[in-house]
């Protein structure tokens, strides 16, 4: 009997002057991770298909007129990539600045950190007499499970992806409208309980800015009692069925305040169903 071995073809590219070897089909972003180069990403997530819309991960690619999104461009043999040139830094700074000038990023910790690192100044647009247009929407509190605050939404499409082809296949939400007026919406903006939503909470799980928030977290934040530094995270297995989803229970003051799942878990890829995500009240005897 002959043994068949599948060998992965490797490609070698140069990033910031250093050779980096990755498996064929890997992205430039994956190669940057391999090389230990931090690349900001917003619309990218390891458990979602890249949509390359935020453009914060752009890099300079030799031979390409414009910058390229590292999150979706496959690495090919001999590529020469620069991740820290003035052009790259400028584009990243402007993208972050643009976002900061239009939406509330106060709860987007990564973005805050990158804005500082890239020197973004979102306040330099407009003036007292000419205020800039911002996304201002009332918070949608339509049920006891999660809230939607689109004035914090950066339109990264992650929630749409998670609700659709990438995880849940429910398609309760999509991007509606166009340009700066584009919003994530149900059909005719009907309330979530009247939509196709099955309350898996996977959209909340992938939201990078707090635009989608578990109601427990939202309520605690409203009264100034949301304290991540005081929280513990306990990993367990969901008790509802035999699939074996891993749950991370976020606990504050001896109460579960939210449930997530590790995105690298072989069963869930970070996604859960309504029971694992929201069905924990019995733990507290409720």
């Amino acid at each position, binding site marked *: 009997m002959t043994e068949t071995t599948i060998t992965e073809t490797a490609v070698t590219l140069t990033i910031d002057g250093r050779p980096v070897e990755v498996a064929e089909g890997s992205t430039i972003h994956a190669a940057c991770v391999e090389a230990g180069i931090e690349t900001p990403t917003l619309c990218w997530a390891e458990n979602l298909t890249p949509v390359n819309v935020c453009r914060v991960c752009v890099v300079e690619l030799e031979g390409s007129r414009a910058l390229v999104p590292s999150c979706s461009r496959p690495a090919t043999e001999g590529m020469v990539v620069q991740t820290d040139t003035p052009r790259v830094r400028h584009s990243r700074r402007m993208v972050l600045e643009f976002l900061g000038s239009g939406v509330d990023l106060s709860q987007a910790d990564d973005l805050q950190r990158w804005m500082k690192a890239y020197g973004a100044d979102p306040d330099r647009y407009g003036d007292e007499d000419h205020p800039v247009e911002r996304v201002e929407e009332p918070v949608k509190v339509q049920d006891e499970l999660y809230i939607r605050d689109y004035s914090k939404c950066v339109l990264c499409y992650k929630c749409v992806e998670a609700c659709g082809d990438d995880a849940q296949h429910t*398609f309760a939400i999509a991007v509606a409208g166009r340009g700066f007026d584009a919003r994530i919406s149900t059909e005719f903006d009907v309330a979530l309980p009247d939509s196709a939503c099955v309350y898996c909470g996977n959209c909340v799980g992938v939201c990078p800015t707090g635009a989608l928030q578990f109601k427990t977290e939202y309520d605690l934040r409203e009264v100034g009692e949301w304290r991540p530094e005081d929280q513990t995270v306990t990993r367990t297995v969901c008790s509802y069925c035999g699939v074996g989803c891993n749950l991370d229970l976020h606990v504050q003051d001896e109460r579960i305040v939210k449930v997530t799942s590790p995105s690298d878990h072989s069963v869930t890829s970070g996604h859960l169903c309504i029971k694992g995500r929201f069905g924990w009240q019995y733990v507290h005897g409720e």
Partner: protein
Amino acid sequence: MTDIYLGADRASDAEAAAVDEALRERGVDAVVQPETERLVTSGRARRLARRHCLLPALHALQNEAGWISPGGINYVAEVLDVPPAEAFGVATFYDLFRTEPPDHDGDTFHVCVDAACQIAGYDDLAASVRAAGGHVHLGPCLGQCERAPALFVQGAGGRPDHVPADAEPFELPQAGDESLRLLRRIGVADPSSLESYRAHGGYEALRRAGEMGAGAVLEAVAASGLSGRGGAAFPTGVKWRAVAAEGGRPKHVVANCDESEPGTFKDRIVMERDPFAVIEAMSIAGLATGARNGWIYIRGEYPLATARLQGAIDAARAAGLLGEDAAGTGHDFDIAVWRGAGAYICGEETALFNSLEGFRGEPRNKPPFPTTHGLFGEPTAVNNPETLLNVLDIVIEGPDAYRTRGTERSPGTKLLCLSGKVGRPGLYEVPFGTTLGDLLELAGGIAGNGELQAVLMGGAAGSFVGPDSLGLPLTLEDTRAAGTTLGSGVVMAFDTSDDMTGVVVRIAEFFRDESCGQCVPCRVGAVRQHETLVQMQRRGSLSPARRALIGEMAEVMVDASICGLGHTAASAVRSALALGLIREAPSP
């Protein structure tokens, strides 16, 4: 029964009947597939099987009820297997669709507010329509710049869309000129008659192409040096060869008739006055690339061109020139017409694919390119009608004769859309290499006060040049070297009485309105650019810091946007600043 969650709203009988009719015209039964049948094709394949009929179905709803109602969306969602949230997302993407009940039951009068109509006084037109009781919608370029200000009437209650100016007699400014190539049949052959088209040499090229075979046609197109006339000037021969080299999957030829670049109307006139030429050239493209499926994606504001193309397709099919063994070439080829619904971005080829497939008209990241992953993810040759027209001559006279016109690097002739302050606005054809000054003379010189202030080249995505550029030869290489562009063939003249600040602010507003919103640099950058210019307009000056900011914003839009819309959104603005066309603060 469907497994898509639908709300309680139901379509009216009239709405359902309108959708059924639209689908029947496209060979799709408007019935909900029984579950057992749906299981045969499952998952994503099932979701995509009928989805490309979404845009025609939404048009039917809009035309019937004057808006797209929740019940209408549910009906379409059910028969096309499209989630209602996604159908709503598509409906809200387009200017011609309304998702709120109209406050009037009449037609909607779309009045263009872009540059040519701006300096021709669109507000007077809008006022007269309102005075007559019409409901006015101010919107972007309608592709009628030679007869500015432009009006397009969107019908409701089942009344068809129409353009009042289409009823007026048409004459080409260069009528009778023996040197015309691409325009030689316009005003001569009857656009509704296949016999007339044939009597003027029509279908000779397809016959010849059938004799030559695909390889020889590809060879001729490549040797001719023909490049795309939609604005990007990509070599047509390279594109066609790449598609021809693909095998094992269905292939497509798409005519990009979504002409929406402000100042551009050339394809409209070609499609209205010589529709058979467009479809004959598409058949040649199909033969050369091995594609059997032809698609015309035409902007929704062109009702006459749509009707003429559909008429030409029907006549050609009846005569055996389309369909199985089209024109006896041994190659099967047919063409379907899809209407856009008011979105500039859908002229970007990958946005066009998404729009036609029933998704939001958002551009795709490239690579992969359309030649391998185009319409429905399959190999696709996308061409502009003007580009296609050139192929007829290349096949008939051969590449050497074709190259006797124009220059070495820009062979052939070019269609140019003359508008604004010129004596005789309209569509012109000149060999590449003609100077800007000679072209303006050909169009009757500078009108208005007779003093040229600037020319907008290539449309809103192009750039301004000043009176010192009259000697500029109109070729791809010379315009590029001069830092401007021929783009889609826009040549719009402004006299010294025109308010250029107002024109530039409107161009910035155009990009703000037309950005699809997908990527951050363009979605936010186009808004901030417009705001900065409005601020300048109100103050009457632009501080050095603000001027620098405009440059910084332009840089990120050029460098990091997904598509050409973002890449060019700052182009005209920057050129206007560089030429001193808009007011600035005195140096400190």
